[in-house]
């Protein structure tokens, strides 16, 4: 076992990369849940985004187009969830699960001809001045653009929920949809928009996996990332900045166990591989605090 082979700077830098897909999916789902909807289909939306992004990027040669396609694909898939749960009043848990299974099947089908192909590269940004700071520079300021997009999204969602009228209305719908409806707010429309935003973010997160982190397409490549994102929303008590903590924690565990495996730690590989999932369970148990939005998961039907 050779622990010295682990480079701490690289470890911390790769932590941010590992955390980004989950961070993106989680912030999207946070907005959805704050509007009162529980969408368990994050895994399905992520993998659909992964395959859409990959296919478009490979065919067009542009990773940017790939990411846009991924967001669109995720949003489109989430729309089916939206229509089923908001207009046809279906059970949110069952529909979310259905979305996951459907997304896994759909992505496997679309991705058939793309296994083993290499995606166009996404270059790292080199933020002037900041990237040259010793130690911190390479860790924080030399990543690909999507990492920063993720962090910007977190800040944007936080500001949106706290300071804007639209954010206030979204929170109100999530707290008490009956009261929001009585006040004349279009509950269903607001929730649909939130659901589509969540789908787009999950799609982006999935595309990050297939275009940057891995970067290849394989069936089922999200390997539970969508579920972890759901857990992180709970862990974060539905507060945007806490998502960063949760995603980085998970990213940290993932990256650490991979490094320990490579360094030859005398623990069977399988037990290291299961550590991120066990860590998620522990996190869920220890932090079941915070109050969920009042209307979360409840079916809304205006009886006019």
């Amino acid at each position, binding site marked *: 076992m050779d622990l010295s082979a682990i480079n701490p700077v690289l470890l911390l830098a790769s932590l941010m990369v590992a955390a980004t897909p989950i961070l993106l999916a989680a912030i999207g789902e946070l907005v959805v849940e704050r509007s009162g909807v529980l969408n*368990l289909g994050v895994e399905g939306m992520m993998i659909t985004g992964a395959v859409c992004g990959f296919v478009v990027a490979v065919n067009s040669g542009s990773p940017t187009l790939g990411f846009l396609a991924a967001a669109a694909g995720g949003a489109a898939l989430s729309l*089916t969830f939206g229509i*089923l749960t908001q207009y*046809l*009043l*279906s*059970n949110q*848990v*069952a*529909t979310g*699960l*259905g979305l996951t*299974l*459907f*997304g*896994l*099947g*759909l992505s*496997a*089908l679309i991705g*058939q001809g793309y296994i083993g192909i290499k995606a166009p590269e996404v270059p790292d940004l080199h933020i002037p001045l900041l990237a040259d700071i010793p130690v911190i520079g390479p860790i924080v300021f030399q990543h690909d653009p999507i990492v920063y997009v993720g962090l910007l999204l977190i800040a944007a969602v936080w500001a949106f929920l706290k300071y804007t009228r639209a954010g206030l209305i979204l929170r109100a719908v999530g707290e008490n949809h009956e009261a929001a409806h009585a006040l004349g707010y279009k509950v269903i429309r607001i929730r649909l928009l939130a659901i589509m935003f969540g789908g787009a973010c999950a799609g982006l997160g999935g595309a990050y996996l297939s275009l940057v982190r891995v970067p290849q397409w394989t*069936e089922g490549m999200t*390997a*539970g990332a969508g*579920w972890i994102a*759901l*857990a992180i929303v*709970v862990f974060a008590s539905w507060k945007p900045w806490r998502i960063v903590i949760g995603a980085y924690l998970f990213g940290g565990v993932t990256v650490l166990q991979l490094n320990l495996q490579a360094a030859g730690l005398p623990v*069977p590989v*399988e*037990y290291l*591989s*299961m550590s991120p*999932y*066990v860590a*998620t*369970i522990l996190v*869920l*148990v220890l932090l*079941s605090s915070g109050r969920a939005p009042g209307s979360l998961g409840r079916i809304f*039907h205006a*009886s*006019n």
Partner: protein
Amino acid sequence: MIRLEKRPQPSQVWIVATPLLAVIATMIAGGLLFAALGKDPVAAIRTIFWDPLFSENAWFYRPQLLIKAAPLILIAIGLSLGFRAGIWNIGAEGQYIIGAICGAGTGLAFYPMESVLIFPLMILAGLLGGLLWAMIPALLRVRFGTNEILVSLMLVYVAEQILASMALGLLRNPEGMGFPGSRNLSQYPSAANLELIKGTGMHWGVVAAFIAVIFAYVVMSRHILGFNIRLAGQSPRAAAFSGVSPGRLVIICLGVSGALAGLAGMFEVAGPSGRISIDFNVGYGFTAIIVAFLGRLHPVGILLAGLLMALTYVGGGMAQGSLGLPVAAIQLFQGMLLFFLLAVDVLINYRIRPARRRVA
């Protein structure tokens, strides 16, 4: 535009009709999908639904139906109890794996001894393995209020890693020339779960599935436990008022579904699959979720839905061979079935009416 108006009573007609409507809609949508993939839609639908039952080679494929249906039905029956109560066991796949490991491990521990007691012990081990694995999310929910969906799901990934570890380590066949995977249990007479009636595909797992259906039917329609499960799922406050203990219900429902999933895993590893290997699990735990909903969470419905789903597996395999239909298309097909069912379910509790025109 249309609008939905709540019915005073749930419609008995639509409760039975919606699964049929969903199947028909899926066939149409599936046909369109296959056409888009460049396959003859009619031929595809016929290969999937008709040929396994009635074609000239059906004698070979029909037994496959029971083999594929048994684990689906067994797991789905267990899941349906919890789902009806609002207790979501999504980790049945993990409980299935752990049950298989425990069952196989028990059997292999006795190798090469022969005894009639070994198989029953394996059954017990499979039951207990699945049950204990399901107790983790159950106890965490009762004690800490943790969401059982996420915990049971995380445990699926953990179980898969344990499976790999067992296939490569503890349970590896010492005479396997270093290849991963356990000894083949279906060749070990005391442990084998063999076909009971030649040519039907019926093994002990199939028998267990039928027993489970009958048991679930009796409990849900005639026992106070079934009443409490339905009550808790529909009106949690009324259930509390009635005196239902939510913690007890969680433990019973998760325990039963874990045990049944573990049992299904054990029957599978001792029979059709034969041995513990890294890719032993094929997703029955997740497909069973579709089966449960397709069967309207009702025991007889699940029996029929399990057979239907098995048909899509077997027919899909045939279509893969003869028409070059990709495997993923079948998975998509199954997902569509669930979606259509959820969509038409609305008709049970709501009527569709034209929207009112505004008053001038």
